[in-house]
């Protein structure tokens, strides 16, 4: 089987799974819930609740941004943990890893394909939140020019571009966690164990990021830039955070990708 064939296969497998769609729909429900809650009540007073929530009633586009903001700390990492934890451990657990490897596919290539599919899921997850947010936002609220944090007003299409950038930013932010998850997944044959470990790591990293005593560690946590997308809502856009985030996630990808390769390539595949 060619590598491209394998990738296509895996992608189809991912999106055929009922679990994948259950997770994506659950994520999509978050902005819908937010929008409905704001519509039914009069909306929170200024400055209360998550950032941007108070702007939702005035402009539906903010539903997508608020939805992403709310999903980042827990919901997105949870779904990514499920997908990343399942990559290798899932195959090993169900006894299909052996058969995958009997096909003329090298182990690093399989690893790469599995990782690519997991990253694709990260992107679909953030796009799902953004699209559901935009959809419900335009249904329930007026949509119009958006006021940026700097006080500048941009047109709705330009604002759509910013929402897309934020979704991309969040997806990139999850690459580090996906790489860690891939490594953990090579350690065990029990997918549930891998998923739990990844989810715990994501939460633990955020808790560490809250402790002022550990501030030397903060720039190295993969969660450090998770909430940094506000810089994309400034005028002019500040790309520093985007770049630092990409660099950090790339570092995690390199380190944990190499670790996963070391483990997976040297592993005895018995199941």
């Amino acid at each position, binding site marked *: 089987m060619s590598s491209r064939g394998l990738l296509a296969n895996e992608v189809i497998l991912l999106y055929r799974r009922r679990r994948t769609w259950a997770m994506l729909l659950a994520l999509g429900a978050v902005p819908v819930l937010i929008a409905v809650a704001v519509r039914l009540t009069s909306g929170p007073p*200024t*400055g209360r609740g998550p*950032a*941007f929530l108070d702007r939702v009633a*005035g402009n539906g586009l903010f539903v997508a941004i608020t939805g992403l903001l709310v999903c980042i700390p827990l919901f997105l990492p949870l779904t990514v943990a499920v997908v990343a934890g399942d990559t290798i451990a899932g195959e090993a657990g169900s006894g299909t890893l052996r058969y995958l490897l009997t096909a003329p596919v090298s182990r690093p290539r399989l690893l790469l394909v599995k990782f690519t599919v997991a990253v694709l899921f990260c992107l679909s997850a953030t796009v799902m939140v953004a699209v559901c947010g935009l959809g419900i936002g335009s249904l329930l609220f007026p949509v119009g*020019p958006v*006021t940026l*944090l*700097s*006080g*500048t*007003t941009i047109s709705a299409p330009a604002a759509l571009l910013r929402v897309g950038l934020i979704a991309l930013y969040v997806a990139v932010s999850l690459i580090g966690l996906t790489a860690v998850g891939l490594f953990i997944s090579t350690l065990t044959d029990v997918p549930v164990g891998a998923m739990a470990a990844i989810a715990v790591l994501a939460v633990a990293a955020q808790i560490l990021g809250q402790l*002022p005593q550990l501030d030397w560690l903060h720039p190295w946590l993969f969660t450090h830039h998770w*909430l940094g997308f*506000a*810089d994309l809502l*400034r005028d*002019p856009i*500040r790309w*520093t955070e985007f770049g630092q985030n990409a660099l950090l996630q790339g*570092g995690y990808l*390199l*380190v944990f*990708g*190499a*670790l996963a*390769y*070391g*483990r997976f*390539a*040297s592993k005895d595949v018995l199941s």
Partner: protein
Amino acid sequence: MKPAVLKKWIPAVLAPAVIAAFAIGASISADAQVQLEPKTPQQVLQMIAGSKVTDFSGSTSTTLDLGMPQLPDLGSNGTMTTPGPGASAAPDSTTAPDEANLLDVLAALSGTHEAQVYIDGPDKARIQVLDGMDEQNFIRNGSSLWHYDSANNTAEHLVVPGFPNKAALKHATMPPTPGAVADKLLAAMGPSTDMRVAEGPRIANRDAYTLELVPHSDDSLVAKVSIGVDAATGAPLQVVVDAVGQTNPAVSVGFTSFTPGTPAANLFEFTPPAGAKVNEHKVPPQALKHNPGHNPDAANRGNKLGHKPGNAKPGKQLGHRLDATKPGKKQAMQLPGSIKGTGWDTVVVVPAKEVPKELSGNAMLNQLATPVEGGRLLHTSLFNVLLTQDGRMVIGPVSLARLQAAAKGQ
């Protein structure tokens, strides 16, 4: 393990090594100073004075570490308000509201704050204080001053006809740029200071001279003030104040990136967004000279802004703070109290009736202050405040002993 198996782990070992090498290499190359032509402190001062950079943009980072415990929300009782840009626009405003908010402001400012700065000549400036998911904008375009706060979507507009008091207004209304801070420090220096040009790091990826000012005083809490000066343009890029007995700098204001050149003109044009609450203020020229406390309009302005610790303006308040860290004429103008000593040892004694009630009766402050001989002491790494038993307040960037002596009238 077999060698073949070990080989599979080579990338896992290499990857962190490569990243470490990359990180270290990047930091070395960023710090590597080319050999600069040696200069005397006077020459560096002349470079600053002769700096022709009037147009630039850059990012700044401000860090304040006064060695105090992290403080809870002190402004929650709602009785305290920060003087807004309007109230502080007058250089001779009483310090009562300032001092009442001392803890409040310090709590909000401790830590690191980042800002984007755009300057185009003397009368166009924009400073964006990045505040997590919010942003504070200070925009000056000629005689028009805007402050926009994204947290509550409010804009303050101030038109100063003719700009009678240009320098004062600019300094008081805008968060200070490193250049402004350096100017103030240099102006306050006297013979009581040792000056030298030291080996320093590159600043904002630019070669820089580091001018060090060391107080000639046993009592001063200021250990050292370092001013980083851009070697190419003479623009001050960084000011770091070190306190005695503290490893981390007490105050650090500096550029993390600096680009000479005129910023885009539209950055200085501000139209309040639709739906924003806009407070228009007109300042008659004489209001800038009189005490705004007696001017109902100005007082109102200060209150309208409201306050929560998160939206304090780091830069601007830092300006006040730096003023207090160094002695000088400015305090003499601001404080109703008497001045004792000169240079770095300057102490201000505020008479009992002038000490604001919020300060003397502040429960939080009572907890933080420790009883010492002659009163209660509020200690930070950069300045001490002594509240004497007879209700006076003695404040200065000096040791407790010096404050006690000043309280006794020496």
